């Protein structure tokens, strides 16, 4: 399965942020999306998630034939975690499972899911508004991966987590990557190199894959930075 983006364009007022994105993302890989501040990474995600109307171009799934992307195909983890504050973690999970039962293949119990992201029983009965940033982030991630959407968009999901949680999340992503197309935006070069199978940079409104060829990490890093510096 592939996510194909063709000539995607988006501008705000007069400013062209995305100037014709052409790219094919494949299933089974984690793509590290790098770009300088304001390069348009979040805009790209918002376009794919249909939060923003695009000005031109198209994107679709290629799954033995072209097909439209439906809401259930996409999981989008935004950088500031959004959770319904009036529910407890457990209740949020129950609601999600309730309405997605038939879409979830290997349905587990609520406790199993909570164990999976290491949220203990006591905490699962607290209102989400009292969760720490990291815990909210874990809940958001969990909700987005339970139903196994084909595409996972992760907008700097690990940046604000403590080292232990970040490591847990990384392991989780590695475990699930074979079933998904994962695009992971980050500012942390080491994280991108460590976790991602491909590095893609967004610069001057276009996407470009940086091939590793047979470079060692240090040279590869320099190559990426040079590409990002290009004006």
């Amino acid at each position: 399965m592939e996510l194909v983006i063709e000539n995607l364009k988006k501008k705000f007022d007069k400013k062209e942020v995305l100037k014709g994105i052409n790219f094919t993302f494949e299933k089974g890989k984690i793509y590290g999306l790098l770009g300088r501040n304001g390069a348009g990474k979040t805009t790209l995600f918002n376009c794919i998630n249909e939060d923003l109307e695009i000005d031109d171009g198209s994107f679709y799934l290629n799954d033995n034939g072209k097909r439209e992307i439906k809401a259930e195909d996409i999981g989008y983890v935004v950088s500031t975690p959004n959770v319904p504050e009036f529910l407890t973690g457990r209740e949020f999970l129950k609601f999600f499972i309730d309405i997605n039962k038939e879409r979830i293949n290997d349905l587990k119990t609520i406790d199993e899911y909570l164990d999976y992201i290491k949220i203990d029983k006591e905490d699962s009965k607290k209102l989400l508004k009292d969760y720490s940033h990291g815990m909210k982030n874990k809940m958001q991630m969990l909700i987005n991966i339970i139903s196994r959407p084909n595409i996972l968009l992760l907008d700097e999901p690990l940046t604000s987590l403590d080292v232990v949680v970040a490591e847990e999340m990384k392991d989780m992503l590695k475990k699930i990557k074979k079933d998904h197309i994962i695009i992971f935006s980050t500012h942390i070069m080491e994280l991108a190199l460590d976790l991602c199978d491909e590095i893609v940079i967004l610069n001057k409104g276009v996407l470009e894959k940086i091939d590793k060829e047979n470079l060692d990490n240090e040279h590869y890093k320099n190559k990426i930075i040079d590409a990002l510096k290009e004006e």
Partner: protein
Amino acid sequence: MLDTFKIAFKLKTTYKVNAIIFSLKRIPLIKKIVPDDWYNDVNIKTLGNVFNIFREIGTLFIGKIIYLFFMFMITSLFFENEEANYILHIFIFSTFIGTIYKNYLFESSNDNYYGVILMRMNAKEYGISNYIYYILRTFIGFMPLTIIGAILLNIPLYIGLLLPLFVVLSKITMMGINIVYANKTNKYEPLFNGVPSIVATVILCILAIVLPLFNIKISNNLFLIILFILTLTSIYSIKKIFEFKDYLKIYKTTLKNVNDFDKFNNEAVLRENTQKQIEYKVKYDSNKNGYAYFHDLFVKRHRKVLTKAVNIQSLILLGILVLAILLVVFVPESHDEINRVPLKYLPYFVFIMYYLNRGTVLTQSLFINCDHSMLTYRFFRRPSVILGLFKERLKTLIKLNLEPALIIAVGLPIILYLTGGTSNNLNYIVLFVSIISMSIFFSIHYLVMYYLLQPYNANTELKSGTYKIVQALTYLVCYYMIQIQVPTLIYGVCTIIFSVVYSIISLILVYKLAPKTFKIRN
């Protein structure tokens, strides 16, 4: 020091001009005309600076004019026709009170936050230079006013000339006291703060008003002596003010509540207040499933603003109804008057139903405490989820609004009947049904508008101009309904038909369009 002051003043001017441009850019229609590069436009900035200078000059006098006017009014209140005799006495004590509350350095302001904390300007130079500016402004601002006042009240001119000096010397002395206090205690707060400031104020007020009642007042000569003492204390204070080093600590203490700048923004306050509506008790659980479960918990955890508020509304209405019934039963003379209310004033009830409606409260809480975060999940925007929840929400809103509506709908026919009835029995039914249909109409109207126009952006700002226009129109239409003069029967039947047709059309629209329109605005 002069450089520091100049920079601080420029900074203040710049951000004030920017703030004006920013607020212009938030007004619909006008924002289209205001280009982004206004922030960089030299001419606009010059215009802003000129405006700012006028404002500096204006504020130099306006506050003081109001202050002196009030002082004169108070003096008049106690000592009518003898104002000239006592106003100096009151002015002196009032100035002392002023030194407690208005003494620049310990006041928290955005200017100080930007200058000292954000821009890291030299706190001592910033503090002293701005204090000098403040003292000069006070002196210059008072001078013409006290002279004019002295002439008008026939007080010796030298008093009028010396009063501004008296004000600034009092302020400087108080400042000196505060600085010495800060140095001694390391507290970096003014000496009179909290309870002590209130006690001091009360004592000074009593001295200002009560002493003259016993014919004791500060005479012109005593005033001169006080002025002389204040001159000595001020010289000492100025020395202390210049010697003092820890201005930064003062700023950090007074500004600790200001640095959360989010608090200055309306949306943030609204968000915070709405989030506080969430009430969590274990017993507010739900045994439902799916959308019903999700929504049930939402309603239960927002009882305060939803069910409880509606119950109070209904109780009040019920009370009014009972009173009306008692009046009708025990005061038969009132029958003629009251008999006309249900039939003649039915149009007014559109307006009443408009005010009783919980639609605005519900949609606001829904957005801030629920949809604002849930809409970032793509599954939440599946048509089935949007419509499933829409149904649950509509049921709730209709139910909430029906509770007070039922009391009115049942109450009006009862009162009509008790006061002598009507020539056409159909009126009873029309009254009942039209009130109920108005209530349902408003419920559907608000929720449909919310789903079709979802007006908020991620910062919970109201972004949709159309939504604001529809809101205003709703109000205007309701208001206009009051003016309509048609027989109740026709009016009632029209209301019912309109409500039913409107509801059907808007529900069809929601089912067709909401999956596209119900998302966070940009």
